[in-house]
């Protein structure tokens, strides 16, 4: 019997790995994948809670998170393509459009 805490801890681990990825990688696509990783770790928590509490809302939430993730991936990748076309790079060090 696996207690709930293990699932949560594992999700936390995945999340941390995702954070490290976002922080240390320069490639925008990999950063993006790390974000997906983090989203999935959250999904895992939802499912775990759902199962242990016997409540379907957690699963519903995962369902919507997936929709959002799909939308986000589509838009995000489009942005990456547009960026690459203009800057010839997807290295986030060299992208500082936010600077005012």
């Amino acid at each position: 019997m696996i207690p709930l805490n293990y699932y949560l801890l594992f999700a936390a681990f995945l999340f941390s790995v995702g954070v490290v990825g976002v922080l240390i990688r320069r490639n925008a696509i990999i950063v993006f994948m790390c974000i997906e990783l983090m989203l999935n770790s959250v999904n895992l928590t939802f499912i775990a809670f759902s199962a242990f509490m016997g409540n379907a809302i957690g699963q519903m939430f995962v369902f919507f998170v997936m929709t959002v993730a799909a939308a986000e991936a589509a838009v995000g990748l489009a942005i990456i393509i547009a960026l690459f076309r203009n800057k010839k790079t997807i290295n986030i060090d060299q992208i500082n459009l936010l600077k005012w």
Partner: protein
Amino acid sequence: MTFEEIVFWSLVLVSGFAALMVVISRSPIASALYLILNFFCLAGLYLTLNAQFIAVVHIIVYAGAIMVLFLFVIMLLNLQDETKLRERMNWKSFAAIALSILFLIELFYIFIIKTPTPKIPIHPSSKEIGTVEYLGKILFTEFLFPFELTSILLIAAIIGAVVLAKKKFELTD
């Protein structure tokens, strides 16, 4: 060790390894493939939690659709391999890793030490919750409105993606 535990630990190990490799590997394609591996393992974990429907959808949407999109973009852009991870490591990266580890420790503290492990099993009703029938029912009754809203979200995303990826689009400095 019961069968259940063996399955759980092996899935955790593989999935954790895959996650690390996503971050570490030099080639984006390798990263993407490791991520797919990770997703499969997660789907397995979902099954251990009696969430059959979500597990299947997860594979279809993530591994099947999103990751294919990623691979497609990577190949489209024809990216070069990056330099070795170790060569690009600077104090900022170490700080980031340290921060993440601190973060993990904190969560560990909260999940394991602060909240003592309750020895409760998986809820008996979870078996029927995970079924397509049950989820479908509440999706089209209780969650109908948000469900319909997702269609708007997806349309917006499609239009957004098309507009952004169009050739004419230019970012101004």
